[in-house]
């Protein structure tokens, strides 16, 4: 015999699948954006910009699906929390997609034969790896409703924030010469985009904890130290 509200459960699972798929899209975009920065690949950068439409489309799909589910099925309790979380997460996905586009747009601007600073490049690469792993871990945490993984994301995010500050200082240091200065500033912008991506994964982590516990706790990150729990 079918479980009760079979169609509803199916619809809800499908929405979740779409959101998780959105996170996959973000990882894809991020990989390509980082590659285009490393190799100054303008063409690849252009693809990233164009493909953002897919993420935007995914956002609209999920948004519409959630509205429809709320109207038709009146979810409550755990179901309601997951629906609210999915709405929040798909927004984070859309923002992360935009950050990838921002990174990609910076590639042609930063020039072909710019002077490069190894420290900054290493830091950017490291930030990229972290950001990628954070998005991946956020996806895992959401799919498996894992609170420990979510809380671990905060720790990783601290590292990304530290790297961001490091790049900033380094760019100031090596910014005597105008070409270097210009390149340095573009790198600062790239770093900032990556840092934003990290913040978004922390947001997703907060949503996962909310779904599981019913409590909303803002997790400590570099921008707002200290935790305060709010039950919603």
């Amino acid at each position, binding site marked *: 015999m079918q479980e*009760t*509200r079979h169609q*509803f459960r199916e619809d809800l699972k499908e929405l979740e699948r779409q959101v998780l798929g959105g996170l996959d899209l973000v990882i894809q975009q991020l990989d390509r954006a980082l590659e285009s920065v490393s190799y100054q690949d303008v063409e690849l950068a252009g693809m990233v910009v164009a493909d953002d439409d897919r993420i935007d489309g995914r956002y609209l799909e999920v948004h519409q699906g959630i509205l429809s589910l709320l109207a038709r099925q009146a979810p*409550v*309790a*755990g*179901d*309601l929390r997951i629906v609210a979380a999915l709405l929040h997460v798909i927004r984070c996905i859309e923002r992360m997609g935009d950050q990838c586009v921002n990174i990609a747009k910076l590639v042609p601007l930063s020039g072909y034969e710019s002077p490069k600073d190894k420290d900054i490049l290493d830091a950017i690469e490291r930030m990229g790896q972290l950001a990628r792993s954070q998005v991946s871990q956020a996806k895992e945490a959401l799919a498996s409703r894992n609170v420990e993984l979510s809380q671990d994301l905060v720790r990783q995010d601290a590292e990304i924030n530290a790297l961001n500050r490091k790049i900033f200082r380094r760019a100031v240091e090596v910014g005597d010469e105008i070409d270097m200065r210009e390149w340095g500033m573009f790198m600062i912008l790239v770093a900032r985009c990556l840092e934003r991506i990290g913040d978004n994964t922390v947001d997703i982590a907060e949503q996962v904890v909310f779904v599981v516990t*019913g409590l909303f706790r803002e997790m400590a990150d570099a921008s707002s130290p200290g935790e305060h729990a709010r039950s919603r």
Partner: protein
Amino acid sequence: MIPPETNIEEPTRMSTPGGPPEQAQEAPDLSALGVKEGAGHAVSVKGLHAYYGEQHALKGIDLEFPANEVTALIGPSGCGKSTMVRCINRMHEEIPGARAEGSVTLDDVDVYGDGVDVTSVRRMIGMVFQKPNPFPTMSIFDNVAAGLRLTGTKSDNLRERVHKALRAVGLWGEVKNRLSEAGTGLSGGQQQRLCIARTVAVEPEVILMDEPCSALDPIATLRVEELIDELKGRYTIVIVTHNMQQAARVADSTVFMLGGEVVEHAPTNDVFTNPKDERTERYVTGKFG
């Protein structure tokens, strides 16, 4: 979540009849009743057991129904919620072979106490049933007055009390010109409000409602729910419902019952966003019923 500084105002009500006759929604006017705001009384249930012959229907219920609040009882069929409310006004014992043990106190008086007159208990604890049941041989006026007449209450201002009760449930405008017509000539929703007026005319302290909207169409249901919202200002209300959305809309706190026991009793908001008990979660999300 509302920030503490916000000034919460009473939503403005639509005006009483004067507007387009068919659609005019008359606002229930409880000030006419003369029962003070916040005058409700709390009901406390302790160690309640109820039996139908050998069948043990309620297994040790402990519940508090706070004054001037609406408490909803939800749960699958046979969980004992109807039995529960019928024990509060001692209607349970009217069923042959049924009995109840334990204590149900209205303020500080145990309605199951020795020597307590059952009819006086029921005068203080009114009840509205699932199927509207106006007395067929009586007119609208007589139906509302029935409570007073049947209990032998001497009343020199009977007419006034009937009119006030009709106003209190928002029926006045619709029936004021046909008070002598049969009560059964009204629509389902109107009949149910008539029954509520009949209950309210006796001026009880608590109103019990056993699935009051099950037999009504959606618009009539919403009007009764709005009435409940008004009534709680002056009475304590307990409502049994199998419609969870209704409990969510109407109740301040919700009790989930299963197999004759209370599983969870919490503010409605918590029950429907973050229930503590796994069984409550499964029931409200429709995983079983």
